[in-house]
């Protein structure tokens, strides 16, 4: 991808006033995986900021680059397989150019991650307590017994019954919900300032999901950490997130406050997501309104706007959708959208076509 100077200046103007001051500042992040079939552009120019105490929801379908983004923030891509460019500034320190050892010392202490599948994220050979103690002792020079006490405290904090006994249990002895709690306990054992939760509740039942979402919310207000929650479930982000970023084919296509995303969505893809979802809180609709087609291959991303083959409004732009990639621009109140449609066209489409059918 060659970037003209014009592109760069435009993106600079998009980056808002917080530049450099945000707790987490991701700037033009690109993660490319060279493969035999071609370069997989999993993340292709992503910028966002996040303050402490705030929650950012990243929404998108599989292959939109949401998990790859979080793994690159955590520095978890295997060296050599991924080509990462751009900057990820955590409190001013760039994580992309930092050495693996420097990032390792930050992991756990300053930033931590909750994975989707706690059974494969925890080591089956060690007890749950052992794993929490290990994480704690890497960053804190304390004796084993102090660390153990801390582990029991953390398990108690996340609501595991009889934590003093459960600390010696193995991951397989826990139910799915309890494993997820144990992983949250591990992630929070060193009071991280940045917590990334990658589909934290997707594998869980709805009643347990509600418990875990409550838990993440409570712990966030207690620790005042910055939280990124990655999910495909718009219900989950509506519950937790202050801001929402919608991703498609490796780029952010809409970014705004959670309220704006649900009340005044601007991008046709966001409309598509909202229409695809049956709503339990509304009158039942006769039919869902799916997005036509399938998500694109990340090796052959459609030219212009990556969403154009699936977009019902692409024909309104005299071909601009096929040739020119729309930049993510602020349309007021920090609501950013990457779409060629004019504000009037978007308003018309939303008010007449989409909103009445939701």
């Amino acid at each position, binding site marked *: 991808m060659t970037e003209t100077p014009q592109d760069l200046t435009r993106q600079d103007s998009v980056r808002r006033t917080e530049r450099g001051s945000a707790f987490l500042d991701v700037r033009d992040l690109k993660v490319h995986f060279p493969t035999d079939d071609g370069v997989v552009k999993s993340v292709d120019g992503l910028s966002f900021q996040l303050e402490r105490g705030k929650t950012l929801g990243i929404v998108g*379908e*599989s292959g939109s680059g949401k998990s790859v983004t979080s793994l690159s923030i955590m520095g978890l891509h295997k060296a050599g397989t991924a080509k990462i460019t751009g900057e990820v500034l955590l409190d001013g320190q760039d994580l992309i150019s930092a050495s693996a050892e420097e990032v390792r010392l930050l992991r756990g202490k300053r930033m931590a991650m909750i994975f989707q599948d706690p059974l494969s994220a925890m080591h089956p050979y060690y007890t749950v307590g052992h794993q929490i103690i290990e994480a704690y002792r890497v960053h804190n020079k304390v004796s084993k017994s102090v660390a153990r006490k801390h582990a029991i405290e953390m398990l108690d904090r996340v609501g595991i*019954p009889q934590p003093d006994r459960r600390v010696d249990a193995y991951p397989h002895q826990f*139910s*799915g*919900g*309890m494993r997820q709690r144990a992983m949250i306990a591990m992630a929070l054992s060193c009071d991280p300032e940045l917590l990334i939760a990658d589909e934290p509740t997707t594998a869980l*039942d*709805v*009643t*347990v*999901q*509600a*418990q875990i*979402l*409550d838990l993440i919310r409570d712990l966030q207000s207690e620790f005042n950490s910055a939280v990124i929650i990655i999910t*495909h*479930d*718009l*219900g*989950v*982000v*509506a*519950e937790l997130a202050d801001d929402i970023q919608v991703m498609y084919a490796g780029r952010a296509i809409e970014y705004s406050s*959670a*309220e704006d*995303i*649900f*009340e005044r969505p601007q991008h046709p893809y966001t409309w*598509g*997501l*909202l*229409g*695809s*979802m*049956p*709503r*339990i*809180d509304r009158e*039942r*609709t006769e*039919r*869902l*309104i*799916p*997005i036509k087609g*399938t*998500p694109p291959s990340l090796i052959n991303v459609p030219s212009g706007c990556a969403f154009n083959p699936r977009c019902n409004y692409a024909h309104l732009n005299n071909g601009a959708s096929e040739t020119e990639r729309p930049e993510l621009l602020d349309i007021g109140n920090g609501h950013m959208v990457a779409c060629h449609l004019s504000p009037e066209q978007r308003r018309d489409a939303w008010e007449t076509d989409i909103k009445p059918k939701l």
Partner: protein
Amino acid sequence: MTTANTEPSTTPSPVGEELLSVTGLVKHFPIRKGLLQRQTGAVQAVDGLGFTVTKGETLSLVGESGCGKTTTGRLLTRLLEPTEGRIVFEGRDITHMSEGKMRPLRRDIQMIFQDPYGSLNPRHTVGKIVGAPYKLQGVKTEGGTKKAVQELLELVGLSPEHYNRYPHEFSGGQRQRIGIARTLALRPKLIVADEPVSALDVSIQAQVVNLLEDLQEEFDLTYVMIAHDLSVVRHVSDRVAVMYLGKIVELADRVSLYEKPMHPYTLALLSAVPIPDTKRKGKQERIRLQGDVPSPINPPPACRFHTRCWKAQDICKVIEPPLVELAPGHQTACHFPENATAEQQAAAESAAKTNPGKDSLPTS
């Protein structure tokens, strides 16, 4: 209320003709231990189900993992042998029908699986996969199998040119369509769909849900849908059965289940669904169930939900509430139903007295 109402499995459905009826269905998986493989216990996966499925309707089974919904689906399709009970399909008792006798019936009862990756043979072409039912059943079609398969592919929204491709060349949504095409090959009457859309992305999920609805209309299909996503269930179902630890705790038509749930568990499930509406953030009244679902190896006595229920009283630990029809077409198994009138409350109480469930403790 009369005693007729306390016999759930024989309650006639309001309209239409009965396609499938299930009475007292039980499936226990034995747990064996030791050198002699003596049975030391049983996983009580399904424990006394009774319901009917009317022609042309969609009945959904919902519940948390481990509630026995998938086992029920596999019992209905006779992929598992029931421990007890009776399954009647089109007036024929198929509960313990031999494999040979069952085979012709398999044309009428088909299944859609959850995992679009695991349920297609990676070494077979799409043509071979979708054509397999014809071959196995010895069905000759007009114009040959290939033509029939290509018609099926078109029907589910795939291109006929896909005939010679392999499953790995398709996305998850397309694979699920291949599975659906295979299911439809023999024009079944009943389709048991086990989480047909839960492995798919939201936008694709909507496509498949719409496809299933179109096919139902076109071929007059009857669905038993197994799902955990309550929003999807509300969208597709005519009636919904809520399961908890191997039992149906509530069975009602869609509207009355979602608008006036009577069992506390249903209420808790519904209140736990995250609502994509920021205006309700934090305002939503949520019933927090404590802990996890108990083990089906050693389920709680009497009402199985009493360990997590906020309304539970002493009677819930002693007498199992039977599944009774408290409102037309709305069956609930609870001593203290929600949204109930005084009459309905009384009906629930008298039913529990006259006809307590079999898990009730013996009265001393």
